[in-house]
C-alpha cells in the first residue's frame, strides 16, 4: 500500500508511523519464545524473529531462510510488543506468509540468503510494512522507492564489529547533507549518479532528511556501540547476535536499552557498561572474504 506525499509515492503513512513509534528503542533478534521474553523484559521496543542469529549463520553456513512458522507463532503468543520477521531478499512468498501471520514489520534482509539476485520485493503489494538495509543514500532511496517504510543501515551482521555500521550510517547522513546543499539543476545528475529515483532525491534535497525513519543494524555488541550509532544519527538500533551470543544476555539487553535512551549521557553510559560479562567475540571485517560479507547482498 502506498501514500502520495506531495505527489511522492512512498509507503503508507500508517506504516511509517509504526516506525516512528519504535524510535529511541532497541529491536532485538530472537530465535524462540524464551529469548523473546528476555528481550521484552529488558525493555526491547520490538523483537525480530529469525531462524538463526547472524553469527551462527556465519559459522554453520548453509541457506538461511525465514524463521519456521511455529517459532513465529510462539513468539507472537509470548510478547505484546511488535514482532518483526526476516524474509529473504526478493522472496515475496516468504513475505506473503509473514503477512498472513500478521507480522508487524517484514525485514527484507541481507542476513538471509538472497532468493533473487536481480530484484527486491515490490513492497507496495503488501498490507504490512517493510524495513530494508542500505549501505549508502542511493541504496536507501531505491528501497524507499520500492515502498520500504523504514530503512536500517546494514553494518556487518554477526561480526560484533561496529566499523561497517559506522561507515554506512556516515555515508547516509553525509549523503543527505550533500543533497541538501545542491541546487535544483544538479539534482537530475545526482539522481543518475546515486541510481536513485529523481522524486525522492528532490524530496531529500528540499527537506534535508529521509522521508522514513533510519535505524542502525549490524555489529552492535555493547551499550557504547548503541550510543555511538545514536550519536551518529540513527533513530533506533537493531541488535542481533550481540545480545544472545554474550555471556549474560538479560543484563546486556537491559544495558543496551538504557544506552539507547540515554545515548547523550556519558555518566549513564559508564554506569550501564559496568559488569556486563563478556561481549560476543568480534570478527575483523577487513579480513573477511567478499563472499563472507552479508552487507554486499542486495543492491
Amino acid at each position, binding site marked *: 500500500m502506498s501514500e502520495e506525499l506531495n505527489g511522492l509515492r512512498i509507503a503508507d503513512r*500508517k506504516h511509517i508511523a509504526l516506525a516512528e513509534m*519504535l524510535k529511541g528503542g532497541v529491536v532485538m533478534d530472537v530465535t524462540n519464545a524464551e529469548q523473546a521474553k528476555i528481550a521484552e523484559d529488558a525493555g526491547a521496543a520490538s523483537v525480530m524473529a529469525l531462524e538463526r542469529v547472524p553469527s551462527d549463520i556465519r559459522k554453520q553456513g548453509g541457506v538461511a531462510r525465514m524463521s519456521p512458522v511455529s517459532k513465529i507463532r510462539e513468539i507472537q503468543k509470548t510478547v505484546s510488543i*511488535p514482532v518483526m520477521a526476516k524474509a529473504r531478499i526478493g522472496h515475496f512468498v516468504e513475505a506473503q506468509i509473514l503477512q498472513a501471520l*500478521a507480522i508487524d514489520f517484514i525485514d527484507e534482509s541481507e542476513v538471509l540468503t538472497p532468493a533473487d539476485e536481480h530484484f527486491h520485493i515490490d513492497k507496495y503489494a503488501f498490507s504490512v510494512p517493510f524495513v530494508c538495509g542500505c549501505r549508502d543514500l542511493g541504496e536507501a532511496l531505491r528501497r524507499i522507492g520500492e515502498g520500504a517504510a523504514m530503512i536500517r543501515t546494514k553494518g556487518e551482521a554477526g561480526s560484533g564489529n561496529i566499523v561497517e555500521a559506522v561507515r554506512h550510517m556516515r555515508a547516509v547522513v553525509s549523503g543527505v547533507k550533500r543533497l541538501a546543499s545542491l541546487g535544483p539543476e544538479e539534482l537530475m545528475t545526482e539522481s543518475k549518479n546515486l541510481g536513485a529515483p529523481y522524486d525522492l532525491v528532490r524530496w531529500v534535497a528540499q527537506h534535508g532528511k529521509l522521508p522514513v525513519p533510519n535505524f542502525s543494524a549490524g555489529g552492535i555488541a555493547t551499550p557504547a556501540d548503541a550510543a555511538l550509532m545514536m550519536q551518529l544519527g540513527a533513530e533506533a538500533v537493531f541488535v542481533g547476535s550481540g545480545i544472545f551470543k554474550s555471556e549474560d544476555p538479560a543484563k546486556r539487553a537491559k544495558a543496551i536499552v538504557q544506552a539507547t535512551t540515554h545515548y547523550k549521557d556519558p555518566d549513564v553510559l559508564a554506569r550501564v557498561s559496568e559488569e556486563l560479562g563478556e561481549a560476543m567475540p568480534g570478527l575483523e571485517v577487513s579480513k573477511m572474504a567478499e563472499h563472507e560479507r552479508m552487507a554486499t547482498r542486495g543492491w
Partner: protein
Amino acid sequence: MKIGVLALQGDFALHVKALARCGVEAVEVRKPEELEDLDGLVIPGGESTTLLKLMEEWRFVPALEKFHAAGKPMFGTCAGLILLARDVDSPRQASLGFIDIGVERNAYGRQRESFSAMGSVELDGEPHRLEMVFIRAPRIRRAGPGVTTLASHGDEPVMAREGSILVATFHPELTNDASIHRYFCALVAEGTREKAV
C-alpha cells in the same frame, strides 16, 4: 510556560514539533529531576512496556505522582494513554492510574489492522472534524463518572479528559492539525495562571 515531552522511547520528537507549531518550546525529559520546572508533560506514543521498564529503572513514578498532585496537566497518546490509565488489560500491566479509565492494549489487532479515519472531536463545545491515526492502538473499555469524552470513533471514546489529565488512543502528533495540542497548551496555560493568582 514550559512543557516537557517524555523522551525515553517513542515518537517524542513529533510531539516536540507539534508543540512548536503552537508556539511552545518543549523540552525532552529523560530523568525525573527534569520534571521540576515544567508546567505540563506529554507522554508520547511508543511501546508501553518499554516506557514502563525505563520509568521503573529511573524511579519516575514518585516524581510523576508529585507532578500530578500539583495539578500539572499531562497528555498521553496511545502508549502514553496506557501508562496514565487506571486499569490495563491484554496483558495486565502496571500503570500510573491518573485517569479513571480501563484500557485494552493492541485492541484492534496487530499492525495489519492499524488505520486512519476521520472523526469528530469536541474541544470547548465546538465540534471539529479531524483525521485520526490509530497504530496498534488501545481501546478505552471503561470510563469512570468523572471522565469526559472529547472525541469518538464510531460510538467509542478515543479521547478523554479527567481534570488535568488528557488522553487519546490515536496520534494527533502524526497529522498537521494542531488543534488538540493547542487545547493541551491552553490547559497548561490555565494551570500556570491559577498558580500565579
